[in-house]
């Protein structure tokens, strides 16, 4: 494996791992927002 390949691998794997762990952290720690009212009529609006 060449240094450029190692760099690509590190960036790619690092990026998806960071995104995955950040998402898991957010899901486990942040509450969902408030519920808003639904509009009465949807289909013909």
């Amino acid at each position, binding site marked *: 494996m060449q240094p450029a390949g190692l760099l690509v691998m590190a960036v790619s794997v690092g990026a998806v791992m960071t995104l995955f762990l950040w998402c898991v952290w957010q899901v486990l720690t942040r509450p969902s*927002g*408030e519920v808003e009212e639904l509009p009465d009529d949807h289909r013909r609006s």
Partner: protein
Amino acid sequence: MAPPPRDSWGSRLGVILAVAGSAVGLGNFIRFPGQAAQFGGGAFMIAYAISFLIIGLPIGWAEWAMGRYAGQRGYHSAAGVFHCLIPWRGSKYIGVIGAIIPLVIFMYYVVIEAWTLGYTVRFVRAFFDPALRFQTVADSQAYFGRFVGSAADGSALRLDLDSLLPWLAVVVVINLVLIYRGISAGIQKVCEIGMPVLLVLSLLVLARVLTLGTPDPAFPERNVSTGLGYMWNPGKTLVVGEDGGTIAEVVDADMVRQRERAEAMAAATPGARVERRTMLSQLADPDLWLAAAGQIFFSLSVGFGVILVYASYVGPRDDIVLSGLTASATNEFCEVALGGLITLPAAVAFLGVAGVAGQGTFGLGFNVLPMVFSAMPAGSLFGAMFFLVLFIAAITSSLSMLQPGIALLEEALGIGRKGSVGLLGTLTALGTGFVAWFSRDLKALDTLDFWVGTFLIFVLAMIQIVLFGWAFGIERGWEELHRGGAIRLPRFFRPIFRYVCPGFLVTIFVLWFLENVVGLGRTEPSSYVADLFEKGEPVAWLCIGVVLVVSVGLAVTIASSKRYADDEA
């Protein structure tokens, strides 16, 4: 008529794992590495990342938003979602594509799922009986042919552990039992257990593969580092023939040695020369973009109609932006960080680049890897783990393919879960039997995968993103996306939803259509088109017949639905 009793997800994590489970499949571990290596490794990753941002995430979010919006108003099928969003009588008949696709894909996907279960048990048996290990690729190739019945129609339907039939019966029953248990007690439970198990087993297999080193000192170039280089190096050194076709790719940790080896190989072949392809020159190749966008598209399961249906059971308090992003991130983690590091390094360490290059998805997964796992230390154990990972990935996907059909039958006919599972079970069992019987050259499976698993998915994805950006409206869509949201999307995603994503998707579809259906740039038409119109292949036409029967059946179901008629009155 009152909407049928509403099923729902038990938790936010549950729906995320279910959507991630639906997306993570065999493609993450087998197709992705093969595509990345074939189309330039590091260069492929650039196109792949861009496609993720402008196709994968936006279509996924659009499905989450439209599905949740319609679900809150009592519609849980793709036809119901379209009926809810577009005030036009014909809209539900367009939406029914979202039930046809997963239903037909289920018919052949469970066949592949049965292979993975059969191979898992084969490796468990090999753990106790070393005679069952595969000695060569030819050995595992012959076994695969017998197992799937590729020599003759009906030859896979034998009652022994080394053939498809018993495993197919098991997986069909498991799928129907689990789907009968419903959203939270069936699908969610399986994914809550299955996805963590999948991650842990994959990490164990990854640790085994990355510590393989150079398994055979007689072949020093066959090692894990070369495998990683084949997968990730952004530039390529190729030996090409007089006609420009690639004879071999040479990978070495040392650039000078790599060049020397390639020159030596070229000198030994009359008319051959060495060609160096840089990352930029590879990015100029449209095929690379087509492959990267296609991989993102199919890997994330966008355009199937599944996310649309799953999201319809999400509550108004749930953050669908975060849920969609998390499900996609889980899929990407499995694909890039696990699939990208396991499959090719293991295969190259035992067979070298020449033994792996050019293998298709099934070739790599069921011809090369079984021999590779048989050859490595503790290989039976790790082989069983790897195929169990594939089986879990497959069952969490196949379950998701049944729910759209169930939802449609419950919604349109007002029947309960027992009736809808019974109806759908009969239909899918017949379809699966058809695919399993016509196993020669995997013709039925391959044909259905092309016309439904590729062509129709492109069509539905385009319809959905246009529906979201233009018919449902970006304002309403944006509002729905952020209802109950803890995180907000940057505003630059608005033009992506409306212009960039549909434009890019249409371009990709047109290129794909011209190359694979029209046969542009080829000396002969696509084999799928030739099967239908030149050879008049009966199995290919029967496949079209299966799709038509399912389509007409579902359309009649919708037409006879009192609920939709009442809405329109």
